[in-house]
């Protein structure tokens, strides 16, 4: 007798599929990607009465007709891995629509177990579900669960085993609903469900609470202020919780570095360990708290139901630029850090739109660029510093929109999605799910982008330290030599001094290092820049430099993440070249215009 079973977990979005998976998995959830796809894959092993069930999570979809990449994943899994059974999570509040997919599955000759979820919520709202009758009528086993509390889990697993061991039984009503051998006719299926299910399923009220909240969230007057408030709170939450952790980590790494400096090794080796290795690991670790808390915040917004309202609220604006409101989330996160922002591109299901969102994200000014703006703006434009910084942020957003538009026009119509989305009822997010999402994303970042970032930081260190004995990043180091060679590129922009070229090269490693590099190269430290910088460049050049810093090549961590998210070096290269070209053109224009206006 078979003791090992393969079960696929499927369900419409917002039916508690992830909660069920998390509660089934306990601590042992394996997270990765579907082979050759950018779609996330999660799976776990569950033991029940000597049987071993491998549960594979399939993307949350409304249909298994293979139209989107996610639906294709589900379809291929069913066709190729031939699971013993499919568990479908069902929100009993929208039973008929959920059952449409059940019929699609049954039509493919698949054994299905239905996990009815949100029963408590439904009872409160006056929805009555006659489970026994439905089971008899649909000829499919049904188990009532509460995914958030783990209730009904054992019963569900028992049913999975029992169904796996049974032969497939084709429900007697199915033949008359078929359009062809494998597919049902939607028109007949929904007609059939509506006529027959209603006896076993009574519905009274609609979501009163959700309706009230939506009068605020989607209100003509309060909708946008409310969104701003939510975004503000999201960043506040992230920064308040992550800054002390980042400070502790930085402290720990600098202590470690000072210990290493005491080792009886040659200076080159010490520098390699201290600046190269420890510095490199440090530059990976500082992202961890940021990613962890930002994704907790996003998961909270998503599970609460607000995220889809934010998408609907802003869709009209994005539509003008050839994308949808779904691009909002990566864009907003970009103001914090482009790394989690690029990762959040996963919330966009449309391949083309996701690519656009990732492509333009670096134009959104992340928090690492702010210290550069503040420093330079205060030195050159003390009276107008706020205006300068503000116009930098606005320019970033405008360029992101502009490039979105161009990209979407150039790449053709693609799959016009029509932006059909569901607004789920507002629900209290499940604490464990939210935490888990933070952890999963941090883990994925460390696993996928961590090594790349570390390697790249080591490479930068090497360039700055060779030939042996040279001053780190100084004029005669390889990096310095490269800087001198390329500084002519920046001459027309008003900052042709080689030190700026070197600082920009370091800035590719991490933007916040631009200021400290300039300070070191001019031999004055950061505090001495107030006097040193104006001696080297005109105000127009300084302003152009800021616009260049805003727009040019994404940092290494972002590029590593983009590589991992898109799977394509060509994409990364195209992005680097485009951002560089855009930065050059804008900085040139700024230098010219500012030269005329402020001299």
């Amino acid at each position, binding site marked *: 007798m078979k003791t090992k079973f393969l079960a696929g977990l499927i369900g419409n979005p917002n039916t508690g599929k992830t909660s069920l998976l998390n509660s089934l998995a306990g601590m042992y959830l394996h997270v990765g990607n579907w082979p050759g796809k950018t779609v996330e894959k999660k799976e776990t092993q569950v033991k029940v009465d000597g049987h071993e069930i491998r549960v594979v999570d399939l993307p949350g979809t409304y249909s298994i007709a293979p139209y989107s990449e996610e639906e294709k994943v589900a379809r291929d899994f069913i066709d190729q891995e031939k699971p013993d059974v499919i568990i479908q999570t069902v929100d009993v509040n929208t039973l*008929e629509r959920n059952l449409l997919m059940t019929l699609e599955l049954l039509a493919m000759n698949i054994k299905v177990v239905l996990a009815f979820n949100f029963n408590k919520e439904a009872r409160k709202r006056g929805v009555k579900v006659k489970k026994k009758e439905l089971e008899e009528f649909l000829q499919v086993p049904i188990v009532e669960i509460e995914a958030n509390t783990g209730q009904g889990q054992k019963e569900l697993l028992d049913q999975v085993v029992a169904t796996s061991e049974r032969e497939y039984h084709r429900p007697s009503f199915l033949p008359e609903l078929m359009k062809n051998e494998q597919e049902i006719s939607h028109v007949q299926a929904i007609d059939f469900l509506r006529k027959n299910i209603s006896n076993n399923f009574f519905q009274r009220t609609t979501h009163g609470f959700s309706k009230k909240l939506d009068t605020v969230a989607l209100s003509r007057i309060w909708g946008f202020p409310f969104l701003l408030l939510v975004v503000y709170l999201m960043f506040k939450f992230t920064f308040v919780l992550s800054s002390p952790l980042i400070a502790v980590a930085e402290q720990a790494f600098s202590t470690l570095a000072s210990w290493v400096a005491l080792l009886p090794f040659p200076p080159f080796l010490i520098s390699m360990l201290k600046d190269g290795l420890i510095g490199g690991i440090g530059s990976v670790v500082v992202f961890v708290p940021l990613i962890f808390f930002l994704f907790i915040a996003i998961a909270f917004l998503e599970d609460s139901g607000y995220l889809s309202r934010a998408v609907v609220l802003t869709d009209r604006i994005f539509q003008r630029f050839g994308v949808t409101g779904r691009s909002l989330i990566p864009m907003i996160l970009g103001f914090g850090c482009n790394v989690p922002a690029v990762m959040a591109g996963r919330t966009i299901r449309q391949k083309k739109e996701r690519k656009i969102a990732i492509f333009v994200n670096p134009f959104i000014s992340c928090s690492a660029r702010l210290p550069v703006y503040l420093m330079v703006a205060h030195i050159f434009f003390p009276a107008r510093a706020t205006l300068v910084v503000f116009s930098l942020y606005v320019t970033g957003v405008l360029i992101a929109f502009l490039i979105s538009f161009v990209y979407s026009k150039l790449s053709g119509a693609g799959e*016009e999605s029509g932006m059909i989305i569901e*607004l789920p009822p507002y629900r209290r997010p499940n604490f464990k799910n939210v935490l888990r999402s933070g952890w999963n994303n941090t883990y994925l970042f460390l696993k996928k982008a961590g090594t790349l970032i570390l390697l790249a930081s080591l490479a930068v260190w090497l360039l700055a330290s060779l030939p042996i004995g040279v001053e780190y990043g100084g004029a005669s180091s390889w990096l310095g030599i490269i800087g001198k060679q390329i500084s002519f590129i920046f001459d027309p922009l008003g900052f042709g001094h080689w030190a700026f070229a070197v600082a920009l090269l370091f800035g590719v490693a991490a933007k916040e290092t631009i200021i400290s590099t300039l300070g070191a190269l001019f031999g004055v430290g950061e505090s001495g820049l107030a006097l040193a910088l104006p001696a080297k460049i005109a105000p127009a050049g300084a302003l152009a430099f800021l616009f260049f810093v805003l727009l040019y090549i994404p940092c290494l961590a972002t590029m590593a993440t983009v590589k991992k998210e898109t799977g394509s070096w060509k994409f990364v290269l195209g992005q680097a070249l485009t951002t560089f070209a855009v930065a050059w053109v804008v900085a040139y224009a700024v230098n010219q215009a500012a030269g005329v206006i402020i001299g």
Partner: protein
Amino acid sequence: MSKTLYDLAPRQKGVIKKVKACPHIKERLHSFGLIRGVEVSPEGKAPLGSPRIYNCLNSKISIRNNIAKQIQIYED
């Protein structure tokens, strides 16, 4: 010209007569329950006028105006 989802006034109800979108979008609309014979009613719209929100099979579905204009209805 037949009436479309877009023409439905608040608190009115309509039954879907025909989904005239391209096959890809039609399939997506179908999977959300927007199928011939199903009753729908408007639930409001985004502050900037599009997309609009409809109640369909007891869930709220948001659809851009240009797509809503492609869904023909019978008025109740």
